[in-house]
């Protein structure tokens, strides 16, 4: 069973500046994690999503180590 790697967030406080940084972060993540050129196949070590079954189409991962990322946005805690 492939390892799961969770994405951690750095410590944040919630001032106005942080909120601005937060929207920037969300916009960047939305693009870099989901869009752009995607390659899969034997030659790629892909840090891919959890093994997904799209109605029978399986995303193939092959490499020495298969890693998975699970995107976790930080829990909002009021100061």
């Amino acid at each position, binding site marked *: 069973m492939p390892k799961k*790697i*969770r*994405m*951690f*967030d*750095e410590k944040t406080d919630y001032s106005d500046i942080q909120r601005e940084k937060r*929207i920037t*972060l969300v*916009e*960047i*993540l939305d*693009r*870099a*994690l*989901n*869009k*752009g*050129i*995607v*390659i899969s*196949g034997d*030659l*790629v*070590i*892909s*840090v*891919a999503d959890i093994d997904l079954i799209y109605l029978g189409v399986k995303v193939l991962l092959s*490499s*020495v180590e298969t*890693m998975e*990322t699970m995107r976790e946005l930080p829990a909002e805690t009021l100061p």
Partner: protein
Amino acid sequence: MIIYIYGIIDSNTSIDEPIRGLEGERIYNISLLDIGIVASNFKGITKDITKAHVLVHEDVLEKLMKKFTVLPFRFRTLFNKEEDVLSLIRGSYIDVRGNLNRLHNKAEFGIKVIWSGDKIKEQIESDFFKRECNMHGESDLPEKRFIERKFEKYKIDKEYGEKAEICIAIVDNFFNRFAAEKKIEKLKSKDLLLNAFYLVENGKQGDFKKAFEHLKIAPVDFKYLFSGPWPPYNFVNIKI
């Protein structure tokens, strides 16, 4: 030596500027014919992927964008060795070259619009019932009532969808003429009316931004977000 890939550029010469990528490793250009694949060595020291890594990936791409046409890779593509990268990209060279040509001198911009989905729907509902009331009496048959209610909902949803289309078209109209290409996601969530991506030539980016300024002051109760320029994440079209 494991290699991390950032993107493909329209240059096969080495990159002089000392740009640092993941784990602080210097990025370099892998030549292939008249293009290059930008990479850095990945030691795999970090077991935990943090958002900071994604920011670095993006930062590298934005620095490259200033000098080259860039086809961005999704975050997290690794190869065991250089030969593997080359053989894979070599096989799609024509596709890649085509994309580089098409995206040359252009950048991606994002426009998002939020509207009050609930309020709009309520308005349509109340207008609808004002119009339709007393057209038929309430049926006594449960099947008839069931289908009548379904039909009401259908009509209301339809009108709601049409209203969304109109509003989206109005917003799009502000930006359309400055964009070479566009991708529009409509009503992905109840309140996210529009999530649009525009591919804008360098020369037209000033006008594009001005168009946003005009949109912002439109007399509607919508919320707007402008972002860019971005590497063309949403406009690369390559099957590898």
